[in-house]
């Protein structure tokens, strides 16, 4: 199993908390958004933890919104594209064919309305598809802070992320619309919404505005149908506690050191 963790740490000095999470969850690849901590400082703290052996992933486009760290051999990970809130890497796992893993930090609802967010999603999804074709890779995982809920236009539109709630639909791999075929993603976050789900009702608590969901699921993981056999139903998890601290209780009891909860994805070896 290879374990991927994403956390938007809200520009706070959470290197120790990140390290504790990595140790607890045996993280192999870490993607951090809104990381004001230098990569060197983060590495020093990560490598003072239990796991050790972390290195950074080269960042030719300095100024990327995502900082990557890994315990995998660095020769197994290559940056593919960086920009516009998407950081895409190609990862070789378990001597299998490579997969693409993208971490996103897309514009906030405070800065973009639904139309702009949908357009950002369309451009980002098109870039991901372009890279899949250029690299001849079909297995793609995208995770991170989309700043959208699973039901927002940018997530659901066929020319956006086209991220569907049902594995049976996702299994078709492509969805046609007005004569065009669009590759879809499976979005397991639909099943993690609300208080009947195994974890917290969402990843981001925002009980303001006239229309309010209280809980939002801005941090999501979506993946192609070709990865469905390797990412099981319990392999995408919203992390709700660490080091004995429950991040998100009911109501206002938000004790997460960031304003976003971390999310974890496990990818298994090909059976």
């Amino acid at each position, binding site marked *: 199993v290879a374990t991927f963790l994403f956390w938007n740490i809200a520009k706070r000095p959470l290197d120790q908390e990140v390290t504790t999470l990595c140790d607890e969850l045996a993280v192999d690849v870490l993607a951090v958004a809104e990381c004001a901590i*230098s*990569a*060197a*400082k983060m*590495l*020093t703290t*990560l*490598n*003072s933890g239990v796991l*050790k*052996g*972390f*290195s*950074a*992933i*080269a*960042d*030719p486009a*300095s100024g990327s919104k995502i900082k990557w760290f890994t315990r995998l*051999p*660095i*020769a197994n990970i290559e940056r593919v594209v960086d920009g516009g809130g998407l950081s895409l890497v190609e990862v070789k796992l378990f001597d299998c064919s490579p997969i693409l893993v993208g971490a996103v930090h897309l514009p906030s609802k405070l800065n973009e309305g639904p139309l702009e967010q949908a357009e950002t999603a369309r451009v980002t999804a098109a870039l991901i598809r372009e890279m899949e074709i250029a690299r001849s890779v079909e297995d793609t995982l995208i995770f991170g802070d989309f700043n959208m809920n699973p039901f927002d236009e940018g997530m659901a539109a066929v020319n956006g992320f086209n991220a569907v709630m049902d594995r049976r639909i996702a299994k078709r791999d492509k969805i046609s619309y007005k004569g065009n075929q669009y590759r879809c993603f499976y979005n397991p976050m639909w099943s993690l919404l609300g208080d009947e789900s195994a974890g917290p009702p969402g990843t981001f608590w925002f009980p303001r505005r006239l229309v309010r969901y209280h809980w939002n699921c801005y941090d999501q993981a979506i993946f192609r149908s070709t990865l469905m056999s390797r990412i099981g139903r319990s392999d995408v998890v919203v992390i709700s506690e660490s080091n004995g601290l429950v991040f998100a209780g009911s109501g206002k009891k938000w004790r997460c050191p960031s304003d976003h909860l971390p999310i974890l994805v496990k990818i298994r070896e090909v059976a």
Partner: protein
Amino acid sequence: MTSLWGKLPEVAKINTPGKILAEQAAALGEMSSGIIVGEITKSGSSRGDVIYTELRATVPLLNNYRIRILRVSHGILSYPCDIQLLFTDPVTYSVVDEGQLVTVVHQALNDERLLLTLSNAIAQATAASE
């Protein structure tokens, strides 16, 4: 049928040059807090009779800047082997056993110019990541 083969020496007891260099690669990562990554690359001669193992230092935060340190070559037997220094003056040493290999590698990894270069790489990577 009774096996006519002799007893194989214990595999775990053979400390191959590749294993020794891999340990030094890991030690480099540890002493630099992961800012420099020790990498091992393996290759073979075109005729397939020589195995090459190279130790490199890579600095991911400096766009994967690489420093080639040394290369060991040997046949199917791990020893004797040749050690080619790649960073310091290009010298090749021939050694007959593990003890001699460790002595030469120790010398190479204590080269002042190499250590100064690694130290500068850490400083530059740290500054670049601020």
